[in-house]
């Protein structure tokens, strides 16, 4: 289950990372963007998972739920509210740019 995986990764990261940058959400969003890119484009998945509901279940269900946009925006908003607008902007923009780069890598490099 994507959401449960996201929660566990968030907890694990929170156990070792004490900074203000929301590293847990960042990690799941980057991992999920890369994995969804691979999942959509890689021939292995196209050949083996064409049939049935496996593709929407993994792509939309698991990987879509593993990543989250609302938490990203809320954390960015809260950083700005806690007088850290620079870090908030850096968090949101670095998430988007790194996410794009990883999605591109997942789609076209493998």
């Amino acid at each position, binding site marked *: 289950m994507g*959401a449960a995986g996201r929660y566990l990764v968030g907890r694990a990261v929170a156990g070792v990372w004490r900074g203000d940058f929301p590293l847990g959400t960042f990690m799941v*969003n980057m991992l999920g963007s890369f994995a969804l890119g691979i999942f959509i484009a890689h021939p292995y998945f196209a050949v083996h998972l064409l049939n049935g509901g496996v593709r929407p279940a993994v792509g939309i269900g698991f990987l879509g*739920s593993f*990543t989250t*946009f609302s938490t990203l925006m809320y954390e960015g908003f809260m950083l700005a509210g806690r007088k850290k607008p620079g870090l908030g902007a850096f968090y949101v923009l670095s998430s988007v740019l790194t996410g794009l780069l990883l999605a591109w890598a997942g789609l076209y490099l493998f």
Partner: protein
Amino acid sequence: MSGGAPELLMRVLMVGLGGAFGALARYGTAVLLNERDLLPWGTLAVNLAGCFLLALFLTVILGRLSGGSFFVLAISTGFIGSFTTFSAVSVESILLMHSFIHLALLYLSLTLAFGYMCTWAGHTLGNLILGTGWGERWCGRVTAGGKVHD
């Protein structure tokens, strides 16, 4: 975070349960709206609605309740977290960029600008609700419900 393995298992189950419903709701919206146009309006719609709902919910609830309760986890991390998605935004943008770079930039700008505005709107409405005392009555009910689990 206190509690042992059973409590962690319960938390994971709550997030998973909320998340399953969130993913289903997102899938329903995406199927309805994403195929109609080049821009993935369905993904945009769930992300904006989710931003508003998460900010509203957390502002009202965290004003009254501790963030660790099972109910809060199931709704915020579970349902709303799964309802919105980041991976689809990244992949859809890259796929759009391949053929229509200006549409990809438009899609990203709309998602970010309105996502931030919806978060702000949810937060502002949440503070208004807290300020009126109407939220206090509503949250009193939630607190009682949360205590059943805790």
